[in-house]
């Protein structure tokens, strides 16, 4: 009887140790963000349905601040925002205006080459939270972008080398 009691304790200890290890182990749940294909593929996909869209540009600065500008309201200066909650609120307000005008809002996320990956993921999360179509513009080369490419990947992310932002910079 005493031996049986010892065994039960032994099993108890074994299970406690096992569950202890399970509890302290770092089980990391990861997911993935699909990145769109090459610029040409994205451009083909984006050629349709251009008219009923309004674009919001979210620039991510070198210090990972967000600068939001509405391309439908060019006279309004860009708004600088330091956190994700502020970005979400700004996007929500702008998309509400677009909704009233029966326009679909598309967010163009434009990270600075030196901005950190987390800032871009935060911006994408803000878009997903508001169920806004988004496109990651990766044409962040310092050298001049080739003329003519202005592909926009919607509902996905595009690795592209466009000149739309260069034109915008020129205009401003």
């Amino acid at each position, binding site marked *: 009887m005493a*031996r*049986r009691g010892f*065994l039960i304790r*032994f*099993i108890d200890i*074994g299970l406690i140790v*096992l569950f202890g290890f399970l509890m302290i182990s770092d089980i*990391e*749940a*990861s*997911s*993935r*963000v*699909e*990145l769109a*294909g*090459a*610029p040409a593929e994205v451009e083909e996909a984006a050629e349709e349905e251009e008219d009923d869209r309004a674009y919001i540009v979210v620039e*991510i600065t070198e210090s990972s601040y967000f600068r939001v500008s509405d391309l439908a309201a060019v006279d309004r200066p860009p708004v600088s925002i330091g956190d994700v909650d502020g970005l979400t609120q700004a996007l929500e307000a702008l998309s509400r205006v677009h909704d009233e005008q029966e326009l679909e809002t598309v967010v163009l996320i434009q*990270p*600075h*080459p*030196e*901005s*950190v*990956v*987390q800032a*871009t*993921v935060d911006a*994408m*999360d803000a878009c*997903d*939270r508001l169920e806004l179509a988004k496109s990651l513009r*990766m044409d*962040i080369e310092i050298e001049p972008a080739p003329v003519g490419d202005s592909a926009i990947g919607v509902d996905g992310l595009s*690795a592209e080398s466009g000149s739309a932002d260069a034109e915008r910079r020129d205009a401003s």
Partner: protein
Amino acid sequence: MQNSGFVVRFVDVVLILLFGFISISSVQATEIELAESTETPAPLPEVEQVVFVGIRPDGTYLVDEERREVRGPNALLQFIAAEVTRLGDSPVKVRIRASRDTPMRYLVDAARVCDQLGLPKALEVQMASEA
């Protein structure tokens, strides 16, 4: 008494199995601290062969299950091209594991390498619950 002997053996077998599994499991310590996302949905299983590319904050690429370092997009291109050749006819996908503090330029370079090779690519993020 016989019953007790059976239990002891049973416990022995279970412990041997447990430690066996622990010893053969590859517990891989990674130095990449992924960006956190609250909105990215849970992933679907992939049918393609996956080539992992880690990116450190200093721009070094980690390949071959983070056992090898390569520097620069050209070396990365050579590595992925060799992997594609090695995997033969199987469809290949590249999974980019960038540290959250990695500058975007290195991620863009890796994405361009994938585009050059015509490979689909995805950025891996750590799923986080909303605060």
